[in-house]
């Protein structure tokens, strides 16, 4: 080795020249490469997505608000499906394990379930927290921008702002009806009462922003605010709002048959695809006299076979039997009337309910009008009038109604027993990835 070192000392100058020549070549090449506009070589397109900042431009204000409305309508469909399955308005007729926790009412025990991760456009399993959160984000994002922009920048700014507030209000309201807790924009957890309060604030803002003539926005905001005020125990406020809603008012989601997102979700998952049906106890529900209430009637989808096996008949609620484009109520006069009946009780409630019954040929209520009876009447009436509009599950929660089938009953399809889910807990995906809730990490508890 010493020999090498000695010789190396002698030849290093010559070696150096040759090595230097080699390196010069490499360096020149590298310099040429880096001097070129290599970024062009790395340019790629994103044909199926656009930067978020696109909607921060006043010229896109209408698109921004339409997006908020569209996302809410899609979310509403999936929320109705999820709430319907948990409350027993729908039954599962497929062999997909992901939905069992809804049908079994055990979704509250498996916080990594699809309710926190799936979107709104599915036909088999769909989420509720994510779609509603998306709608809420859209609307709040729109409110922030529209508040910042001027009328000169955005035509119809007041109307767009009112619409954004309205749909933000319904998004928060539905989140409160579905979730035990939720978090927004990586913030802290908010309980149901907090969500209803946020919803009320947005409805109030919608009423304030709506220009003259925007009656539909105002009436929908009144129904929404009455609902969440009722849920918060503000019966006077709820009554005042509900009483302002004119007869015949309805705000529907504009479903259509052009894209899965816009389908009437209940029709799609029952009559069209056969993944869900109406369980026997929710079919053709009757009044206290045994009369079938046409408002909760169901229709046999004779041509549709269930996805699970060969025998389960598929029923679709008659109110949605028109097809994928059948509208879904977001807010309507009947709900306002039921809120009034619930608050006023007694004979006034009977009068309201009988008036609504008469419009559908249902015999009037003639039973006792003590508080307990009227409460049961209102609950029953709400179950049939608002059938598969997604409100039954929160009624079960707030009225503490018995489960059907009872908790502990063996679940026939996927094992285990029926549980007691009403509201859904904050999902793992929120708990573990929201920095306000622990930044995605849980304490290490064990070794190997």
């Amino acid at each position: 080795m010493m020999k090498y070192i000695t010789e190396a000392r002698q030849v290093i100058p010559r070696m150096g020249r040759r090595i230097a020549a080699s390196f010069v070549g490499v360096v020149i090449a590298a310099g040429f490469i880096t001097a070129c506009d290599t970024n062009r070589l790395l340019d790629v397109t994103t044909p199926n997505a656009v930067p978020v900042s696109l909607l921060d431009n006043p010229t896109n204000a209408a698109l921004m608000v339409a997006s908020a409305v569209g996302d809410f309508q899609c979310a509403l469909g999936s929320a109705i499906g999820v709430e319907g399955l948990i409350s027993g308005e729908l039954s599962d007729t497929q062999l997909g394990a992901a939905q069992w926790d809804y049908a079994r009412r055990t979704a509250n025990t498996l916080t990594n379930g699809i309710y926190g991760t799936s979107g709104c456009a599915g036909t088999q399993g769909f989420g509720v927290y994510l779609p509603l959160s998306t709608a809420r984000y859209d609307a709040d994002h729109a409110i922030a921008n529209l508040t910042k922009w001027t009328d000169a920048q955005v035509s119809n700014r007041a109307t767009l702002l009112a619409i954004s507030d309205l749909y933000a209000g319904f998004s928060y309201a539905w989140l409160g009806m579905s979730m035990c807790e939720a978090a927004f924009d990586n913030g802290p957890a908010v309980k149901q009462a907090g969500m209803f309060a946020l919803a009320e604030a947005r409805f109030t803002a919608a009423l304030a922003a709506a220009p003259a003539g925007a009656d539909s926005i105002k009436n929908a905001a009144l129904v929404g605010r009455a609902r969440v005020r009722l849920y918060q125990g503000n019966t006077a406020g709820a009554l005042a709002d509900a009483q302002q809603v004119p007869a015949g008012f309805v705000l529907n989601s504009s479903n259509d048959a052009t894209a899965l997102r816009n389908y009437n979700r209940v029709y799609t998952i029952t009559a069209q695809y056969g993944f869900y049906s109406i369980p026997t106890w929710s079919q053709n529900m009757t009044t206290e006299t045994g009369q079938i209430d046409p408002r909760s009637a169901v229709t046999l989808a004779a041509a549709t076979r269930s996805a699970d096996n060969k025998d389960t008949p598929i029923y679709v609620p008659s109110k949605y039997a028109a097809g994928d484009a059948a509208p879904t109520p977001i807010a309507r006069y009947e709900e306002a009337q039921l809120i009034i009946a619930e608050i006023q009780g007694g004979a006034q409630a009977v009068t309201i309910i009988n008036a609504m019954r008469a419009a559908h040929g249902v015999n009037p209520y003639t039973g006792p009008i003590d508080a307990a009876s009227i409460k049961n009447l209102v609950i029953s009436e709400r179950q049939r009038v608002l059938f598969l509009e997604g409100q039954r599950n929160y009624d079960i929660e707030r009225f503490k109604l018995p489960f059907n089938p009872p908790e502990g009953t063996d679940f026939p399809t996927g094992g285990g027993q029926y549980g007691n889910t009403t509201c859904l807990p904050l999902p793992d995906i929120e708990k573990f990835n929201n920095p306000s809730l622990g930044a995605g990490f849980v304490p290490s508890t064990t070794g190997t």
Partner: protein
Amino acid sequence: MSSVGPIRSSPRVGWRAALARAGAVMLAAALAVTPGAAASAQQEGGVLAGRVITQTGSRPIVGAQVAVADQAGKGAVTDASGRFRIVGVSGTDVVLNVRMIGYQAISQTVRVGSVNLQFAMSERALELNQVVVTGTAGGEQKRELGTSVAQVNVADVTAKQVVPSVDALLNGRAAGVAILPGTGMVGAGARVRIRGIGSFSLSADPLVYVDGVRVDNQTGTGISIQAFGSGVVSRLNDFDPDQIESIEVLKGPAAATLYGTEAARGVINIITKKGSSGGTTYNFKVSSGQNIFQDAAGRIATNWCHVGTTSTGAPTCTPNGTGPLLGLNTVTREDSLGTPIFRRGLLQNYEANVSGGSGIFQYFAAASMNANQGVDPTNEDNKKSFRTNLTVTPNDKFNLQTNFGYIYGRTRLACEAGCGGLMWDSEYSTPANLPQFCAPGKVACTWTQGFNGTPPAADEVLQDWQNLNRLTVSATINYNPFSWFTNRLAIGTDVTQEGNIEQVPYLTNDTLANFWGAYAAGYRYNNQHQATYNTYDYVGTVNFKLRPYLNSKTSGGVQYYTNYNTYLSTEGDFFPAPGLQTISSAGTIQPTTENWTQNNTYGFYGQQEFALSDRLYLTGAVRVDNNSSFGSQVHWVTYPKISASYVASDEPRIQEHLPSWVSSLRVRAAYGGSGQQPGYNTALQTLAPVAGPLGHSILTPNQIGNPNLKPERVLGTEVGFETGMFHDRFGIDFTYFHDDSRDAILSRGVAPGTGFGAAAGATNSQFFNAGEIVKSGVEALFKAQVANRRNFAWDMNLNMATQNAKILRLNGVDTVVDNGFNQHRVGHSPFDWYSQRVVGVNNATYDPTTNKVTIAKADVMCDNGHGGATNCYNSGGLVVAPKVFLGHSTPTFTSSFSNTFTFFNNWRLSAMLDAASDYKRLDNNIRIRCQLFHTCLEYVNPQSTDPKLLAQYFSGGPLRDFTIRDASYIKFRELSLSYDVASKYTARFGAHGATLSASVRNLGMWTSYTGLDPESQFISNSSPASTDQAELPQLLTWAFTVRLSY
């Protein structure tokens, strides 16, 4: 310049003339690749011909490289009879180099014109002069490298037996390269993992190059026949093993530094067969055999119920009851009825190739056809492959090589796992679905015949297939203007068109239609995907002899890779009438979706190597890359490399001190970096267009993005040695590696409260640089020639590898939950299994009158993580016990053991076992049967079952540590017997050589795993953890093969 007459080698010819001549020769070759053309070329220059055989036994060596020293393009590859012929040789005496993987190289001076040369090569456990592909021009000898490179002599393997795929070729033949098969269906592929898992969320698929150009390396393509987003077709297996000469695997970042970003998981170089100078050689292969579901009745579960009657006297079959037990094994039942569920699939394989050439022009052309049937009656894999490789060497300075490969085929697959299919319906059979329990008049019910819900006839209605068209074209120019300056320019493209179709026809059979629900009216889904990979690669090397004992080699290279994917999907549901099959004829047409993705990588490198006395090699290199997926705040990424290799046995002073039985010894060490890029556009925050109300498009939150996203940067260290002993009859190749991934990327969920992640196709995830993962292990290859006698030789190979990965850091915290069963925890391997573990039941009450065991939730005790027990549930009935470590999800030890016995020169018997251990897998079969469907014997017969298991069954889902089971195995992977027909017989039908072989794959296993198969698993779900759920096990395959060479 315009002449197309006789072309003579000239060292002074200009490069423009060389190009023109090359073009002329290419044209001539394209017009007529015929023996006649080759024969005319043979008229030039001197001839060298002869045979290469083994030193012991005088067996012909197939695929040996014979080359004339210092005369570029003057070389040949031996044919099936070991013969070679080189024409156009200049001079009177030349040095002939003979090389073959696994044999000691020969360099011998021969007289030009000799046509009966014979070279007897001795098998060598350690061959350091073999040239391998490392990213530099012309490759490097193994002795120069500081890293280990695995080489598989494919031609030798395929000469002995039928190897169905490239991943099967790699299985057990390269230490540290794990092949994780997905399913036993023909046409399905495996995941390839080199040195274990070193990333949280990025693909662990190694890069794949074919003849120097990057190609599509996706391992999970096609229709999602396992559900949960998993395709099972691997692009790696598009390439026909019969057209491959060798495969080289660069393992780890230190070896793959020059390949830059994306190469951290290793690089697989596939080198296809090339033509060689000499006479035209024709090779034909015919192979036929069967694929068999071995012991199907013993592996498919038997499911149980208690037989009883209802109050009206109707027969019942329920999990909970007191009546007699009824067991159902659908395989046994259907066999007895003469309607077997699974078939014996026919395997057919035909291949023909022609190769040869002159001193200037060499060619290899091949065509092959593979038609394989799986054991599922709908499973088929049909491929046709064509290849033309041309080499033009107009003079010593210039060489053009073109490679053209085209593959087309159709792979039809069947549903399994979560998708349903025969496996699902058989494994989860239900006695309650037997005809005797059907209500009167329920025809469809009687069709179910005990299957889970769908009888085979209804399963087979579904048609899932992938149409494939794949073109891989490359051209490589080697231009060496001076003896000290070499250049290589490689340009190529790999275009893969996949047509992924799923359809159910309009069913006219009413009973059959009942099993398809609304889809009995049929549907068709069509997904067209095209992946294009383009490679532009230039490398120049300057080689100086600075002193007689000191050589300097300086390399510089620049590479530009583009990857472009297009997707077009559409679906039509519900045909109005039978016979209609197009999407446009469907009643409900889903919106068409279109997308394309692009990813470009641009980088360059410089490398300096010094060689002292041709035994000490010191190398330093730097690679710099940029990639279109990097975040906007991230620009060039630099990867360094240094390595040393010292052939100590060539050092006289050391040689004196080595024991006489040590014939060779090399030590080596390397340190280097490589990377792994994040996915397409994952850095961007985006909105996606979706259909909004009233026919308007709207924008919805899509991907939350991460502008600070950096590539994973992996720095690896590797040290090792190779030694040959006892005249190279015994050899050891040992490597220790340690890789450190500093910016390991984790795909974390996006908090839904942000509003992002709801759009179709969104992943609800955000990539971020989460922490640091280190992995280390050893790889050892032992080769021995146990016996080497005239009529008997015994060669033995033992490959062993360990891989241990550990998370060092998770950005300041110590645990992150990945999903329900796998977690990433500091101090543990990524994706280890974690769950609550039931350790005891305080009280279980058995009621013999109802045959039920009752366990209160309060009595179920779980591991508390500190060696004690705690209640699994809280008072509200929620599982609150901590999740504890249950095991590793991927093997930490893999091994293979192969032996080849040669009898009487012509007979060879080869066998290979491989093994994997120290890992567990999720057996969802046992979960579904016991916990969900309640059909396992342990559930229906609870008085004999461990209450700890019952407590889990009764939980319905939250408690299920019983599903994580040891999956260690030893498999008898290959057995083959081949016979080289004696020349006196082959001469009778004009052949140079003929080989007959019989081979069997997967003919046995030893495992404690209780599920269907310790290997089969979901192929491409996001977690690499192994999950078993009604997938077809690996099949037993036997084949008989005849090879002829003319």
